[in-house]
């Protein structure tokens, strides 16, 4: 075994910042408990700026300390002690989390204030918001697998009550399903951890990465942990809990759940494969992960196009976008080893792009829901006049998700396409392009209805505060401009013309996915379009309507498949067979 590197046995000068980034939100939670429900919002509004300051300090300190900050708890070095480590990956995720938490707090400030009379719901919301922040920060900084387990569980325990904040039977059921499935996932993860400890006597990420070899027990552990985490990330076909939970939660909570919570377990998968098990033989296993991602994109998008409710459409869009995140895994595999190159950077940037854009999307959908008192897509007519800012925020976040330059998704797509070209795996490039078409399709579908004139008199249920709408707009703009952020200081972005192509000229290239999306929306959207086509066109469009009927029938079939897959026993059996498939795939050496 090589001697421990300096990153292992000493706390670096900025190490205390890592502790603060967990302790500050937790202190806020405890303080809110002491002061009681009426002050929860004030506590949160005091703690959030503090937490953001800590995150900014970590972002500034990281490039000055050779790209890694370490803190050893109690100054005990691993394997006995526990280390917190921040690298470039943690830094960008910390920053994205802080940004989304700020925006959601600004959005929720009016909805969850004690002034409305009910103190219990605001109390729960603000405490859970801070708890989710603490758990996510711990996940991004944890240096060993067991700390990651604890942080993942904290994240789940904070996320589940957010789903059922309104206490209605349907959301309680969604929360219960979410909790049980997440628990199953985390038990599998813990089982894998136990096996790894039995084999190598340590759970420290850096120590393990030096010790693991392709023994059968390690492969089983890897398969169990990966599948458990996939269940928590809701990758197809393990997405049974996601649509009801994310669509039923209050909008501010949906933004957090969809934007941030699923990224927590995704980040652990990244840590696992890029840091701990980078050297395992895994060509087939990585292709399998990528294939699941591709299936998630197709199924999630098709079912999203068939939804009648806006929030369910956005939830299914999350199912599809989670698939996108997993395309980085096959592309990162170099010669027998997973390399931290452009594909890793692309995947992380994609995760951040989705975190910001999807949170903005749910927030604008929340404003629309609150104004209309419902969120049927067919009933959105006229909302473009009533809530121009929210509709603009929805459109901008949709464009950001599609990959409009200079958005983060554009940069991610460019990086992944470059990696696909380098590895000669052209089929993933096809999936990446198709994903853009599908995203364009459901965003255009919603915008068509939102911009249409109202069919009947619209009654406004409630006036939404301007600050909330602006928070959604700010986050959408943030996602749309993130491609220009200084990523190179934190992520391994290869040299090349990827960043130079972030020019306005690339906007023209956006027309292709927009056109493709429009075709898909017409073919697969179940709802009648809100405008009339003149009779003289009808004769020419007859073949189109024939194709449309055929594609609608096939998309109905996909929806039925989705309904079967979302049954509890089917999903559990999928989970177990995936674990077996991963273990078998890793046995096939390439």
């Amino acid at each position, binding site marked *: 075994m090589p001697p421990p590197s300096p990153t292992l046995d000493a706390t670096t000068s900025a190490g205390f910042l890592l502790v603060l980034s967990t302790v500050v939100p937790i202190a806020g939670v405890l303080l809110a408990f002491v002061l009681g429900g009426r002050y929860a919002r004030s506590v949160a509004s005091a703690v959030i700026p503090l937490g953001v300051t800590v995150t900014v300090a970590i972002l500034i300190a990281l490039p000055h300390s050779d790209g890694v900050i370490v803190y050893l708890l109690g100054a005990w070095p691993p394997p*006995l002690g526990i280390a917190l480590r921040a690298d470039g990956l943690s830094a960008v995720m910390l920053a994205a989390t802080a940004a989304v938490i700020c925006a959601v707090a600004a959005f929720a400030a009016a909805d969850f204030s004690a002034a409305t009379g009910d103190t219990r719901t605001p109390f729960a919301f603000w405490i859970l918001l801070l708890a989710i922040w603490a758990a996510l920060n711990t996940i991004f900084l944890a240096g060993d697998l*067991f700390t990651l*387990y*604890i942080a993942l*569980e904290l994240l*789940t*325990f904070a996320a*589940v*009550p957010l789903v*059922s904040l*309104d*206490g*209605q*039977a*349907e*959301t*309680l*059921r969604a*929360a*219960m*399903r979410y*909790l*049980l499935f997440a*628990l*199953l996932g985390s*038990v599998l993860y*813990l*089982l894998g951890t*136990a096996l790894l*400890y*039995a084999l190598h*006597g340590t759970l420290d990420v850096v120590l393990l990465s030096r010790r693991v070899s392709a023994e059968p027990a390690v492969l089983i552990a890897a398969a169990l942990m990966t599948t458990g985490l996939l269940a928590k990330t809701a990758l197809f076909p393990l997405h049974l809990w996601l649509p*009801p939970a994310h*669509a*039923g*939660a*209050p*909008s501010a909570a*949906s933004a957090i759940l969809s934007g941030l919570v699923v990224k927590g377990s995704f980040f652990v998968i990244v840590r696992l494969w890029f840091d701990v098990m980078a050297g395992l033989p895994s060509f087939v296993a990585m292709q399998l992960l990528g294939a699941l991602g591709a299936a998630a994109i197709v199924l999630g998008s098709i079912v999203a196009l068939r939804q*009648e*409710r806006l*929030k*369910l459409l956005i939830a299914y869009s999350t199912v599809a976008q989670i698939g996108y995140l997993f395309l980085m895994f096959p592309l990162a595999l170099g010669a027998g080893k997973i390399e931290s190159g452009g594909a890793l950077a692309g995947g992380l940037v994609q995760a951040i792009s989705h975190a910001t854009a999807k949170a903005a999307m749910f927030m604008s959908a*929340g404003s629309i*829901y*609150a104004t209309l*008192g*419902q*969120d049927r897509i067919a009933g959105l007519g006229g909302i473009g006049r009533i809530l121009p800012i929210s509709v603009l925020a929805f459109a901008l976040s949709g464009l950001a998700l599609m990959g409009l330059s200079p958005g983060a998704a554009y940069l991610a797509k460019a990086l992944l396409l470059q990696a696909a070209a380098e590895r000669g795996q052209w089929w993933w490039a096809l999936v990446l392009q198709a994903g853009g078409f599908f995203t364009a399709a459901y965003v255009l579908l919603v915008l068509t209805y939102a911009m249409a004139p109202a069919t009947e008199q619209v009654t406004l249920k409630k006036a939404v505060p301007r600050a909330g709408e602006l928070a959604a707009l700010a986050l959408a703009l943030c996602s749309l401009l993130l491609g220009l952020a200084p990523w190179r200081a934190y992520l391994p972005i290869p040299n090349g013309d990827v960043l130079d192509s972030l020019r306005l000229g690339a906007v023209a290239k956006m027309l292709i996915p927009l056109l493709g999306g429009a075709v898909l929306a017409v073919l697969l959207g179940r709802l009648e379009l809100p405008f009339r086509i003149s009779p003289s066109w009808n004769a020419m469009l007859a073949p189109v309507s024939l194709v449309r009927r055929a594609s609608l029938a096939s998309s109905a079939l996909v929806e039925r498949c989705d*309904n079967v897959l*979302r049954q*509890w*026993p089917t999903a*559990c*059996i999928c989970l*177990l067979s995936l674990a077996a498939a991963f273990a078998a795939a890793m046995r096939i050496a390439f």
Partner: protein
Amino acid sequence: MTAVRVFGVCAALAVGLGLYGLITNPQPLRKIIAFNILGSGVFLLFGVIGRHGAAAGVGNDPVPQALVITGVVVAFAATALAIALLLQLFQRTGSATLCNDAPRSAGPDPPGG
């Protein structure tokens, strides 16, 4: 058969039983109990691992014990949360099933907003 191996087999059995129960039982309360059996199996495995280290001459490895205690606390918290949710659900609806995927188009507007 050594004691360690007996415990190892017991752990595997508990994991298998728990998984079976979690998949096949439709009632949430039984699912929660099955989850606890599954968890106990994993904790027992940690015990076996600690003892196994002793067999290899390391001495009784204390780290798995620490992990188990933390794990038990987490499983306890999870069970408490699940039971609380279940009680709420029962008080709201008078039944505690998860199976009906609420109708999407008919009926009053579903929650969320």
